């Protein structure tokens, strides 16, 4: 490891060529803002399901969870489950309202019957915070992983990731981003499936034989809960943030605008949940495969965090060629996730802030496209700069933070605006700002930053993820503010919202 691997680079080069070809094709179809943000609303349920899965299955969930399972067994499964159980919530409360009430961003829905400008500003604040932290985590992960997998320097890896992603989004908009997600999801699911089959072939296709072999070598403790969940309140707080954060991630929410109607939105969540659940079951097998066939010591020697478990396993069961393929898939995975994030951040900057706040909604089509692309460039460059600035920093907490902000800033406001008649503009504003700020402040005061990052003895706030406090807080603040000062026009517009929510746009 750590040397330039020609096979991996070859596979990756093929992926880049293919996706840039797609981008070229998509660029010719991207003529309006509706193409740029929402792929012309022509994506099918299966395609969007794959793209949702592609947006969601990050390198952290592939390499990270396989590594966690390889090093600590059962505990890795707890993480996977936390990342999956948000999808039913997306289905029951989020997907159809978004599709029927909004155009490009989730703020469209929150602002539907409220005053546009204050709501948009607060929503953009929450969205951009989520996107920024998620992007930093992805870019730093990209730099480290690609150095490990391909032997490229950290900075070069960050620049390639940022640059290629920028090409996808800038020219191909949502059409290219969707297809990059689909290609990546198929490669990742296919690669993980093939790897799992190669592992299971050695255990007469019986996962239980694999688990038994692991227990024989490392003790039955690998099949039982270990140290990951020691404090139940802490675990529930993290679980809540993962669950409701999924339903508030801007790049996931944005995908529901790419389908033609609510029924297709529903179908796409079913597919996405099936793929993601299947993928997490596969990573469990891959982790145990690495534990038995590679060995915990070898996994730890390659990377103390365990990130190399899946690639090492690929080399062990499929040889160097397969290692190259899996490495290229991991790189593709990061690229696709970063592209989705950047597009959703660009939508918040251009559609929410420029079009609806600065220009008050009166904007010609051409200007919308130009501003969207400028916003994309700004975010792409920012992603590269942040990736380089945070080199060598411990950014593992940033994904948890992004989920905590998404769950506290976006989810409560979204649910209240759709399902609770007395909700007001001030209530929405207060809820989103309270959610974002409380998540930021409490993460800073938590052991996650104070102990793990700053190296202090103890932290003022006991929970590692603040979801258990900040999510209820955002709900209470939103409800209390709305009840204190009712907004008659918002309540009067509720029947129209309800009508459009269920019957769709005319």
């Amino acid at each position, binding site marked *: 490891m750590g040397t330039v691997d020609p096979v991996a680079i070859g596979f990756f080069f093929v992926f880049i060529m293919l996706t840039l070809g797609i981008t070229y094709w998509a660029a010719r179809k991207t003529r309006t803002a509706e193409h740029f943000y929402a792929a012309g609303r022509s994506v099918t349920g299966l395609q969007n399901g794959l793209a949702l899965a592609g947006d969601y299955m990050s390198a952290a969930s592939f390499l990270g969870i396989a590594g966690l399972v390889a090093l600590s067994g059962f505990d890795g499964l707890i993480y996977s489950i936390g990342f999956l159980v948000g999808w039913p919530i997306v289905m029951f409360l989020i997907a159809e309202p978004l599709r029927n009430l909004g155009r490009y961003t989730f703020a469209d829905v929150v602002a539907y019957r409220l005053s546009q400008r204050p709501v948009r500003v607060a929503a953009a604040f929450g969205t951009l915070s989520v996107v920024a932290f998620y992007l930093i985590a992805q870019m730093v992960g990209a730099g480290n992983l690609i150095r490990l997998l391909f032997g490229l320097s950290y900075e070069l890896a960050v620049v390639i990731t940022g640059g290629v992603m920028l090409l996808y989004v800038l020219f191909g908009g949502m059409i290219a981003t969707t297809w990059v997600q689909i290609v990546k999801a198929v490669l990742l699911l296919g690669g993980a499936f093939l790897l799992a089959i190669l592992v299971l072939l050695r255990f007469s296709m019986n996962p*239980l034989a694999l688990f038994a*072999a692991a227990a024989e070598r490392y003790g039955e403790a690998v099949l039982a809960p270990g140290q990951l*969940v020691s404090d139940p309140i802490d675990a529930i707080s993290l679980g809540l943030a993962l669950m409701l954060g999924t339903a508030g991630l801007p790049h996931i929410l944005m995908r529901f605008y790419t389908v033609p109607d609510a*029924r297709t939105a529903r179908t796409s969540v079913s597919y996405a949940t099936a793929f993601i659940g299947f993928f997490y079951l596969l990573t469990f097998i891959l982790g145990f495969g690495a534990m038995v066939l590679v060995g915990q010591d070898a996994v730890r020697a390659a990377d103390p965090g365990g990130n190399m478990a899946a690639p090492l396993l690929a080399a062990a069961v499929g040889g160097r060629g397969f290692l190259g393929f899996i490495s290229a898939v991991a790189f593709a995975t990061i690229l696709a996730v970063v592209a989705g994030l950047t597009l959703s951040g660009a939508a918040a900057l251009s559609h929410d802030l420029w079009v609806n706040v600065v220009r008050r909604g009166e904007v010609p089509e051409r200007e919308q496209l130009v501003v969207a692309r400028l916003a994309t460039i700004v975010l792409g460059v920012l992603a590269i700069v942040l990736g380089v600035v945070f080199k060598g920093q411990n950014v593992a907490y940033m994904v948890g933070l992004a989920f905590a902000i998404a769950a506290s800033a976006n989810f409560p406001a979204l649910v209240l605006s759709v399902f609770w008649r007395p909700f007001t503009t001030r209530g929405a504003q207060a809820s989103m700002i309270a959610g974002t700020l409380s998540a930021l402040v409490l993460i800073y005061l938590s052991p996650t930053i104070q102990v793990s990052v700053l190296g202090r003895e103890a932290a003022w706030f006991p929970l590692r993820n603040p979801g258990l406090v900040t999510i209820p807080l955002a709900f209470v603040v939103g409800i209390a503010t709305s009840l204190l000062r009712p907004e008659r026009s918002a309540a009067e517009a509720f029947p129209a919202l309800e009508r459009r929510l269920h019957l*769709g746009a005319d």
Partner: protein
Amino acid sequence: MKDHKTALSDLASAQWRLALTLTAAMMAVYFSFILLVAFAKPLLGTLLVPGLSLGTLLGALTIVSAWILIWIYVRWANDHYDRTVTTLRGRD
């Protein structure tokens, strides 16, 4: 025959009730699993057959339960909900 407005708000509250029930069910399943992991570690480590611990089984079942809850919702929505929506739209 009920008027249009009542029919719509009936549909809205039926959808809301089901969505809320299924959300609560998912949370109940997931948080029970987490609480078991926190408080009943030895129990979850019990081997049912060689290689399969109770914890692994329950974890996999948590994922399966997410699929089942979604399936219940989609069945209701594609069938009952969509039919009512079509009727209501047709009445405009």
